[in-house]
C-alpha cells in the first residue's frame, strides 16, 4: 500500500503502456491480424453487399472479443515469476497490480477496438448510425471489462502449460454480458432507441469484475509467486 493504491496502480499501468509502446505487439502484430480476419470473413459469404452490411456489426464484435483476448493475454504473459516476486516484495497491493494491468490493457484494447471500425467501414460498406459517437463510452466500458476478465483469466492460469488455450476458454463464456451489452448498444443506436439499459449492463458487468478482481487479488498473488 506504499504510496497509495492509485499511485501504485498508475505506476504499473505506466510500465505496461511503456512496454507496449516499445514492443508494439498489440498495435503492430495483433491489430494487423485482426484487420486480416475482418477482411477474410467476406470471402466466406460471397461478398453479397446486403449480407455484408448485416454482418458488419456482429463480425466487428466477434473480432474485438477474439483479438481483445489475444491482446489482454499477451500483456499478462509479460511478467516472469522473478518479476512478480520482486513486485510483491515492494509491498505492492495485489489489487493495485490488478487495477494497473487491467487499466493499461483496457486502454490498448479500446484503442485497437476503436480503430477496427475503419476496416469494417471499408470492407463491409458499413455506415455508422447517427449519434455513433455514443459508441465511444460503450467501447471503453466493454474494453475495460474484457481487460479485467482477461487479466483475471491470465492470472488464474499462470504457470500452466495449457495456459494459451485454457485462458481463452475460461474467458470467452464469461465475456457474454460484455459482448451483448456492447453489441446491443449499437443495435439500439441503429434502431434509434435509448442505449442506457445496455450501458447499464456493461457498467454492472464491469463493477462485478472489478469486485471479483479485488476480492481474489491476494489468492492470485499466492499462485503467481
Amino acid at each position, binding site marked *: 500500500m506504499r504510496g497509495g493504491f492509485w499511485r501504485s496502480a498508475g505506476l504499473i499501468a505506466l510500465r505496461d503502456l511503456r512496454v507496449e509502446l516499445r514492443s508494439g505487439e498489440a498495435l503492430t502484430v495483433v491489430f494487423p491480424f485482426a484487420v486480416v480476419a475482418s477482411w477474410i470473413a467476406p470471402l466466406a459469404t460471397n461478398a453479397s453487399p446486403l449480407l455484408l452490411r448485416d454482418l458488419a456489426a456482429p463480425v466487428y464484435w466477434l473480432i474485438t472479443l477474439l483479438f481483445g483476448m489475444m491482446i489482454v493475454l499477451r500483456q499478462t504473459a509479460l511478467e516472469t515469476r522473478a518479476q512478480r516476486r520482486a513486485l510483491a516484495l515492494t509491498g505492492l497491493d495485489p489489487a493495485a497490480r490488478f487495477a494497473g494491468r487491467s487499466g493499461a490493457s483496457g486502454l490498448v484494447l479500446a484503442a485497437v477496438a476503436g480503430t477496427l471500425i475503419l476496416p469494417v467501414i471499408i470492407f463491409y460498406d458499413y455506415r455508422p448510425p447517427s449519434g455513433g459517437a455514443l459508441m465511444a463510452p460503450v467501447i471503453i466500458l466493454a474494453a475495460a471489462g474484457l481487460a479485467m476478465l482477461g487479466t483475471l483469466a491470465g492470472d*488464474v492460469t499462470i504457470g*500452466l502449460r495449457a495456459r494459451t488455450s485454457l485462458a481463452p*476458454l475460461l474467458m470467452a463464456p464469461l465475456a*457474454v454480458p460484455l459482448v451483448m*451489452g456492447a453489441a446491443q448498444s449499437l443495435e439500439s443506436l441503429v434502431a434509434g432507441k435509448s442505449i442506457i439499459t445496455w450501458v447499464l449492463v456493461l457498467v454492472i*458487468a464491469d463493477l462485478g469484475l472489478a469486485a471479483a478482481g479485488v*476480492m481474489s487479488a491476494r*489468492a*492470485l498473488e499466492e499462485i503467481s509467486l
Partner: protein
Amino acid sequence: MKKRLLAVLTGVALGAGLVLAFTSPPDLLQGDFVRILYIHVPSAWLAFLAFGVTAAGSIGWLFTRRMSWDRVAEASAEIGVLFTAIALATGMIWGKPVWGTYWDWGDARLATTAMMFFVYLGYLALRRTTTDPRLRARRSSVLGTIAVVQVPLVYFSVKLWRTLHQGLTIRPDGIQMDGAMVSALLVNLAAFTLLYATLLIYRTALARMEEAAAAERVPAQSPVTVPRLREADA
C-alpha cells in the same frame, strides 16, 4: 452407514420417479414427449443447485482457506456439469418436436444454462491442469467467484435482449398441468435432489482420499545423483 442409507433412499426415490414418469398421462399437446420433462426439469434444477453450491464453496474457500470448501466446490461442479449436459441434451430432444427447433435463442434459461456449461467445463479443465491441491483451490476459487458475478447477468441480459426485441417463439408458459403430472414431476425433483446429495457426499469423500493418497506418495528423496561418467565410458 448414514451414507449408505442415503444411497438406498435415493435408489428407491429414483425408481418411484421413473415409474411415475411412465405411468402419468400423456400431455394433450405434447403427447408422450412430456415425459422427457420429468428428467429435463430435475436435471436443470440440479445444474443450478450444483453451480450455486460451487459458487458458495469457492467464496467459502477464499474467506476461510479450508480445503473442505474446495472439495465441496469441486464435487458439486462435476455433478453440475453432468446434469447440465443432461438438461441441455434432453431440452434439445424435447424442443425439436414441441417448439420445432433444437435451440431457441429467445430463452434466457437456455442461454444461461449453455453458458454455465461452458464456464464449468473450463472450471474442470482448470482443475485438471493443477496437481497441487492448494494451488488448485486458489485457481478454481477465483474462477468460481467470477462466475458468480457473471452468470446472473447473462440471464438478465438475454431476458432483456428478448423483451426488447419481441418474443420470437411461442413459449409453453402457463400451461395447466394435470395432478398426476405434477406429482410425477415433484417426485422426480425430490429423487434427483437426493441423487445430488448422495453424489456430493461420495465425491467429497473421494476427494479427501485422493488428497491423502497424494500426500502419502513419497517418491525417492533425491532424484539427482552423482553422475557416473567413468562407468559409462567403460
